[in-house]
């Protein structure tokens, strides 16, 4: 069905676009034709009191009143529709960054506005941009930054982002100044300061746009982190530079700029940067602290998060510190604690709302860009523009290769030339540069139009040409790929490795990252967490997960009517068979989340970051799945009755594990769910809808049976584990059914295990998925005998 939509998609999209444009154009046409009438309409309200209206108008048009919100809404809607169309096409997102699309939409809107001779509402001016449009974008980047790789590569990132921005800005500025000195180009009136300012704003890169392309190519983590880090810090540094240079420009007498002023400028740069970070961290801690107390009013948790972040931005701006760095630092600091404190829904809300806000901001900025493109305020100067383009590339190349040459000396794993080429090529400009150019005060910059034009040219060039070709380039260069597998083993080994490394480093007395990190973590545990995390949370989120699962399992069992309250009591022989570790994929997923996030503290899944999307929540589908399953189990149990035949004595049972290597086709249903959560961006759309045919109990059970690969653990025998489950279904039937519902999986080693009852007659319930079954520790040794109660229930 997805395939069917693809040809339909673009059509649909075009149609919608067309209609929207029509309505927008018509409204603008309407507006422009009765522009004179507008006056009267406008005045009508004011005049209503002074003179009686001639008639009661039955139908009037008051466009002025709603113009700004109306047009803004239309633009956002248009961009959203375009994005929908963009993502419906399977290949497009991997080919070009989404910025391309937004720019095109902007250009379209600009064309319409220009064509209908409409005056676009002055939505973007300096204060609106800096106060409302910029913070969400920065907040979103800061919040979704994968912390562990960032801090692991912190030195390199700071060195590269900071110095790179400075080098680029000054390099481009100076080179352009030299070009301006040539009288033939007619640029003599652009002073050094103006050139430097232009350099600083044109060096603001927005490489996040290409990150989506990188994801497709699955580049290695360090490279990804470099680009991400650069995006994060680059905006801040550009804006700081921009402001300082504007301040310089305002000092009217150019000759009065003493060296002491320049030194003051440098000092100010440092203070602004560090001060911003400082405030951000403070606000991060405050908001984390406050979320500790919000358990009874969880609806305002997102509000707290957003308001404090925004406050950090504003406070920093008040003190002329860098608001961008402040909000970034706030997001990074607060994320860890807030995520533990807030409820699940608040967490989701925060994520989605952040994406939404940043999406809106960016859309608006790009629309503006489009509007500016198609208009009359351009000044074209071949020399300036061409040289700008050329110098941008040259200086970026210089900064990349020079800076990385130096930092490679200190890195254990240097960036290869290929990596550096990719970094060089990903210098795509975006909304940031445009905004800064647009907001140049005309009084200080008589040739502002030239700057705007040059900026636009650079943006168009880099976004379209570089953005589209960076994907093929990465593939061509065969950059070192990441090898992330999502498996318990990997996490386990990684964790072991961390400790091992720290230990060995301790032994040989070397000092390195890991010890710093360890020390920080200890400090964190001892002090910070006590203050910032809610008291009633169990210290281990794993325990809380168990409790949650316990409840859920209990509810499930009661609902399905299979289990009575005696399930919670001591091991009962007759109940044993009902002991289906019914941990749903959702639980498994949350278990996995907890594992990855907390206990093992493994790096975040960096490659799943996408600026424009959040990964589809798998839990909704899983919830549906659970619902279906519950219905079935209920029906099952109704038919089967509650008396279960006695199984074989414990001793003869083996714990059987059905293992499902990924190459096998999986039957539909929860397998897909499990598949989903290991997928990054789901092949969700490729999975056929789950249909559970529950014609008859036996059939339905068998449908859910998986290909019976069994790995009885002999070692478990040795350990004295009570083996309980066995299995006894015929393979062929299931395989047949399984094949009929092939799920398309990513080629990752997925792993599913199923514990099955060893009852020959009794149809056991299906097992959820890997860890789930394990959690329901069949493997409990000792007196439990055949009891397959989960440790959760046991504890009750």
């Amino acid at each position, binding site marked *: 069905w997805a395939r069917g939509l693809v040809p339909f998609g673009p059509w649909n999209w075009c149609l919608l676009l067309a209609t929207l444009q029509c309505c927008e154009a018509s409204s603008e046409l309407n507006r422009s034709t009765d522009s004179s009438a507008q006056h009267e309409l406008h005045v009508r309200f004011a005049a209503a009191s002074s003179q009686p209206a001639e008639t009661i108008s039955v139908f009037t048009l008051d466009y002025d009143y709603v113009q700004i919100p109306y047009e803004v809404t239309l633009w956002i809607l248009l961009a959203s529709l375009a994005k929908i169309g963009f993502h419906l096409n399977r290949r497009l997102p991997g080919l070009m960054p989404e910025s391309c699309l937004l720019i095109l939409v902007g250009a379209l809107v600009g064309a319409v506005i220009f064509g209908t001779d409409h005056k676009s509402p002055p939505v973007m001016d300096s204060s609106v941009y800096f106060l409302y449009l910029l913070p969400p974008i920065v907040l979103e980047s800061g919040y979704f930054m994968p912390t562990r790789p960032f801090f692991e590569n912190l030195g390199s990132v700071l060195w590269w982002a900071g110095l790179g921005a400075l080098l680029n800005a000054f390099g481009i500025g100076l080179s352009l100044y030299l070009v301006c000195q040539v009288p033939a180009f007619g640029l003599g009136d652009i002073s050094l300061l103006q050139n430097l300012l232009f350099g600083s704003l044109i060096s603001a890169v927005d490489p996040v746009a290409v990150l989506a392309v990188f994801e497709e190519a699955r580049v290695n983590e360090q490279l990804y982190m470099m680009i991400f880090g650069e995006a994060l810090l680059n905006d801040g540094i550009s804006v700081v530079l921009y402001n300082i240079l504007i301040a310089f420009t305002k000092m009217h007498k150019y000759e009065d700029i003493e060296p002491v002023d320049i030194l003051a400028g440098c000092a100010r740069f440092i203070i602004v940067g560090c001060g911003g970070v400082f405030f951000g961290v403070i606000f991060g801690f405050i908001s984390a602290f406050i979320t500790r107390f919000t358990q009874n009013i969880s609806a305002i948790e997102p509000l707290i998060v957003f308001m404090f972040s925004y406050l950090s931005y504003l406070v920093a701006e008040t003190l002329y510190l860098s608001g961008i760095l402040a909000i970034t630092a706030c997001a990074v600091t607060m994320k860890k604690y807030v995520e533990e404190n807030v409820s699940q829904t608040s967490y989701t809300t925060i994520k989605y709302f952040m994406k939404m806000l940043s999406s809106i901001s960016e859309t608006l900025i790009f629309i503006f860009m489009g509007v500016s493109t198609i208009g009359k305020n351009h000044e074209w100067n071949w020399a300036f523009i061409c040289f700008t383009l050329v110098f941008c590339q040259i200086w970026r190349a210089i900064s990349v290769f020079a800076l990385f040459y130096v930092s490679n000396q200190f890195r254990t794993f240097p960036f290869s030339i290929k990596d550096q080429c990719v970094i060089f090529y990903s210098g795509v400009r975006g909304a940031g540069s445009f905004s800064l150019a647009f907001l140049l005060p005309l009084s200080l910059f008589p040739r502002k139009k030239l700057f705007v034009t040059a900026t636009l040219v650079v943006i168009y060039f880099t976004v379209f040409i570089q953005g589209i070709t960076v994907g093929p380039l990465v593939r061509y260069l065969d950059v070192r790929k990441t090898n992330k597998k999502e498996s318990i083993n990997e996490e386990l080994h990684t964790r072991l490795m961390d400790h*091992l490394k*720290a230990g060995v480093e301790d032994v040989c*007395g070397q000092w390195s990252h890991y010890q710093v990190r*360890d020390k920080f973590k200890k400090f964190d545990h001892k002090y910070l967490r006590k203050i910032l995390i809610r008291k009633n949370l169990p210290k*281990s989120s*794993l325990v809380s997960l168990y409790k949650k699962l316990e409840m859920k399992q209990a509810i499930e069992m009661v609902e399905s009517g299979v289990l009575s309250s005696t399930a919670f009591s001591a091991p009962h022989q007759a109940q044993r068979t009902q002991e289906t570790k019914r941990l749903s994929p959702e639980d498994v997923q949350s278990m996995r989340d907890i594992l990855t996030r907390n206990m093992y503290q493994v790096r975040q899944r960096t490659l799943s970051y996408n600026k424009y999307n959040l990964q589809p929540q798998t839990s909704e589908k899983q919830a549906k799945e659970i619902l279906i399953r519950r219905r079935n189990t209920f029906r099952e149990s109704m038919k089967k009755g509650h008396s279960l035949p006695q199984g074989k004595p414990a001793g003869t049972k083996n714990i059987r594990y059905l293992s499902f290597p990924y190459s096998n086709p999986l039957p539909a249903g929860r397998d897909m769910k499990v598949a989903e959560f290991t997928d990054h961006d789901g092949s969700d759309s490729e999975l056929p809808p789950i249909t559970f045919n529950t014609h008859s109990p036996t059939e339905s059970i068998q449908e859910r049976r998986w290909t019976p690969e069994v790995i009885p653990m002999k*070692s478990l025998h040795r350990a004295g584990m009570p083996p309980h489950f066995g299995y006894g279904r015929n393979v062929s039937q299931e395989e047949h059914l399984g094949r009929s519902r092939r799920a398309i999986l990513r080629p990752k080693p997925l792993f599913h295990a199923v514990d099955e009852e060893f009852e020959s007659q009794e149809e056991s319930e299906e097992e959820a998925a890997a860890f789930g079954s394990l959690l329901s520790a069949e493997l409990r040794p000792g007196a439990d005998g055949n009891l397959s109660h989960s440790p959760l229930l046991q504890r009750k």
Partner: protein
Amino acid sequence: MANPLSASSPRAPFCLVSSDQIEQLHRRFKQLSGDQPTIRKENFNNVPDLELNPIRSKIVRAFFDNRNLRKGSSGLADEINFEDFLTIMSYFRPIDTTMDEEQVQLCRKEKLRFLFHMYDSDSDGRITLEEYRNVVEELLSGNPHIEKESARSIADGAMMEAASVCVGQMEPDQVYEGITFDDFLKIWQGIDIETKMHVRFLNMETIALCH
């Protein structure tokens, strides 16, 4: 001191340590051993930060493991001299990009073998479920609130996963004994251990962590 780790020595591990690093390590060795020619297990108590490491015992054990020292196929040595110390440290040398593919593979295998020995405490060549559990419990021992059952479940899950990766489809009656070294290699196949298993030999004065 002559470099005992020349490539020609049959006992030399493939990943060598450079000579200035040897100097540093020698100094450290003397610190640890209290100027004795050999180190015993008790000397590791002098490293304060190691106390807080959850897998401390395994790490210390690894230093004395005969398999790592290439002195045998099982058992623990009582004491190690500097040469042995270097042998162990050389497992953590970052893989040089100038090495050719074959050397890289060999180096990688050596590192993985070191890791394998950490898991396989009874030296039977297999990582059994019990040993895996042991490791997981130790790893989680730093967190006092995680119960043993959880650790066990996780170990079991990992084992299952390993089984599925290594053995793939199994017959209904097949028994999975444990992870052999080859299976272990398979698990690590996609993951580039070269970037992970190294210790930065920074060129700065060792911060005296050992008093």
